[in-house]
């Protein structure tokens, strides 16, 4: 009961914060941004409490079904956003990130929320390590995705010389590109460690490091995309529009790995299969 109240409160706070950020980006009223940030921070704390309570009740990190995973990624996205806002203020970012977090939470709330019993194979200390690292990586890449969308919008305005309202509201290309790069340098190691720990865990649980299960395959595709982006950035000096497009492609693959594979394709990681 307390769990539900906490979760619903966090969801409500995120929705109101989203509305406040949207009001801010349209009207540029300062109070809207302040309220948005405040509500989001409170929502984040409440959400953290919800995750903590669930962890305690279940006895393992709440990242084992779709409801939990979506909720955890939503929480991590909000956390990553608050961190960016704290270190480097990018005012318009809230209007892009909070809707994403809100959608994740709404999607999570539509999933069965019962605390699941873990199958024996998953009862391992690798669960918190592997799953949380993967989901944190997802959250950082989600932030990079928002930044890439903002970059493309802003770049388009400048290239086409149509400087509308968006031009004034979005930060400079340089800031967006630099933040995007920082997300990449943080997200990529997380993704890599996530895959490696998953592989070790798979060896322990099923006796094989890699079994080309759809999730593993798609993780590899995603990893290769981000690796290519990082490589091009470091060697050729890719930046700006190309990097932004690649970030969006990478996030597309990541999204499919996270959700598409779990829901659509049968395999070891498929949430749907675990509890049938």
């Amino acid at each position: 009961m307390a769990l539900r109240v906490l979760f619903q409160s966090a969801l409500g706070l995120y929705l109101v914060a989203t509305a406040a950020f949207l009001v801010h980006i349209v009207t540029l009223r300062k109070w809207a941004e302040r309220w948005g940030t405040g509500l989001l921070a409170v929502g984040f704390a409440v959400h953290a409490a919800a995750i903590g309570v669930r962890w305690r009740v279940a006895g393992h990190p709440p990242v084992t079904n779709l409801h939990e995973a979506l909720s955890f990624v939503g929480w991590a996205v909000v956390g990553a956003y608050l961190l960016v806002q704290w270190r480097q203020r990018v005012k318009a970012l809230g209007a892009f990130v909070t809707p994403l977090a809100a959608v994740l939470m709404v999607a999570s709330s539509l999933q069965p929320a019962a605390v699941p019993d873990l199958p024996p194979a998953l009862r391992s200390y690798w669960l918190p390590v592997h799953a949380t690292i993967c989901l944190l990586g997802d959250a950082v890449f989600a932030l990079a995705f928002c930044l890439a969308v903002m970059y493309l919008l802003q770049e388009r305005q400048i290239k086409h010389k149509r400087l509308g309202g968006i031009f004034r509201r979005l930060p400079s290309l340089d800031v967006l590109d630099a933040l995007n790069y920082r997300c990449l340098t943080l997200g990529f190691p997380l993704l890599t460690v996530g895959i490696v720990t998953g592989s070790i865990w798979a060896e322990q649980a099923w006796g094989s490091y890699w079994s080309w299960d759809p999730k593993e395959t798609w993780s590899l595709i995603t990893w290769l995309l981000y690796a290519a982006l990082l490589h091009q950035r470091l060697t050729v000096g890719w930046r700006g529009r190309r990097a932004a497009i690649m970030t969006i492609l990478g996030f597309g693959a990541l999204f499919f790995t996270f959700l598409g594979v779990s829901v659509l394709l049968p395999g070891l990681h498929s949430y749907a299969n675990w509890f049938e």
Partner: protein
Amino acid sequence: MPTGSSRSRLLLLGVNHKTAGVEVRECLALGGAPRPPLEIFAGLPACEEVLFLSTCNRVEVLAASPDPKAAAAAIREVWCTVGGGDPGTLDRSLYVHLDEAAVRHLFRVAASLDSMVVGEPQILGQLKEAYRKAAEAKTLGLVLNRLLNRAFSVAKRIRTQTRIASQAVSISYAAVELARKIFGDLSDKRALLIGAGEMAELAARHLLANGVRGLVVANRTLARAADLARELGGEAVGLDELEAALEGADIVISSTGAPGLVIQEEMVRRVMRRRRQRPLFFIDIAVPRDVDPAVNEVDNVYLYDIDDLKGVVEGNKAEREREARKAERMLDLEVLKFQAWLESLDVVPLIRRLQDKGEAIRRRELERSRSALGELTPKQAAALDRLTTSIVQKLLHDPIVTLRRSAGAEEGRELLDAAYRFFNLNGAEPAPDAGGARGKEAAPAGPKGPEGRPRRG
């Protein structure tokens, strides 16, 4: 109909860039007057409070006066005699605003809605300076003080809540605004000036003033480049070193008189590879153009020619117009509020007279009855005092509350006049049945000066 109000009224007269040429404005600024203009205007008998504003685009006198007609004539007279203005020209170019119109005009000036470039920030500073001078010379009283402070806060609110001042309305500003949206911080960026034309120099100066770190001047004649580079604190290169110079630059301003293209797409593509794709921003203000338009297609390269920049500026101006209309609506409300405050001032003297009259009647009637009451103990005397005071206060309480509440409202004026008549507060002879000679004594001696409004000096 007699009204008890003797409130001084607001008067604003002056000329601005729209109504008068610069020579008229110079005359009215009273630059050659033997005494400071503020002192001259403050010395006019019809002006209770005065503020004098003189900028390159406007000369205005704002005054509070019980007789605005006489004050306007006197101010006009000063302008003709001291400033040497021609009366005919003056009449054609002078605007005169009274009360609400004066408030509105002042608010519009403060918010920079009446400026040549709407939204320019200088005028507010100039108005504050005029205010400071007037405050020092003690030519301000309650009304102008309050009015000016309201004007400042209205201007600030309009500036923060609308975007009348947020867009660049000159080519140079537009270039800087764009550079900021591409590079963010300009302090580690370098500019390259190709050609040494006046407009390019202006743009370069503007970039430097906005924090751009280094400057390279490239010109066909190296000597001219060296001159300009020395002046702007940069270095000079010849046109043959252009490609190398492009490699180190972030913002390029080009304005050569060359008939053909100085910078080709191929050159930029080569340079971009060597720059490892660091963004490059071209501002081509040459006619005919110096930079191949196809350069804009290269990744991370942004090219704006003179027409593009003009387009940006025009777009910004249109946006400002829209924002200005929003500002006018905000202003309307503020004018009404100030007007209401001003009218509420009328109630203060009325209430005081009403209380004075009540107190006078009470004392006199008490005095008259004392002999009939015989010797009273101090306790009885005090009780009697309390009783009579309480009756008078309770009787006057409701009218006073009603008057306070209606101050500034539409029906307030009528109510005010009615109150003066009901209570006979104008010092006129009371009706014969009101107690004969006693009534005459009861009325306070003539109208007092407007309370709550200290005269200057």
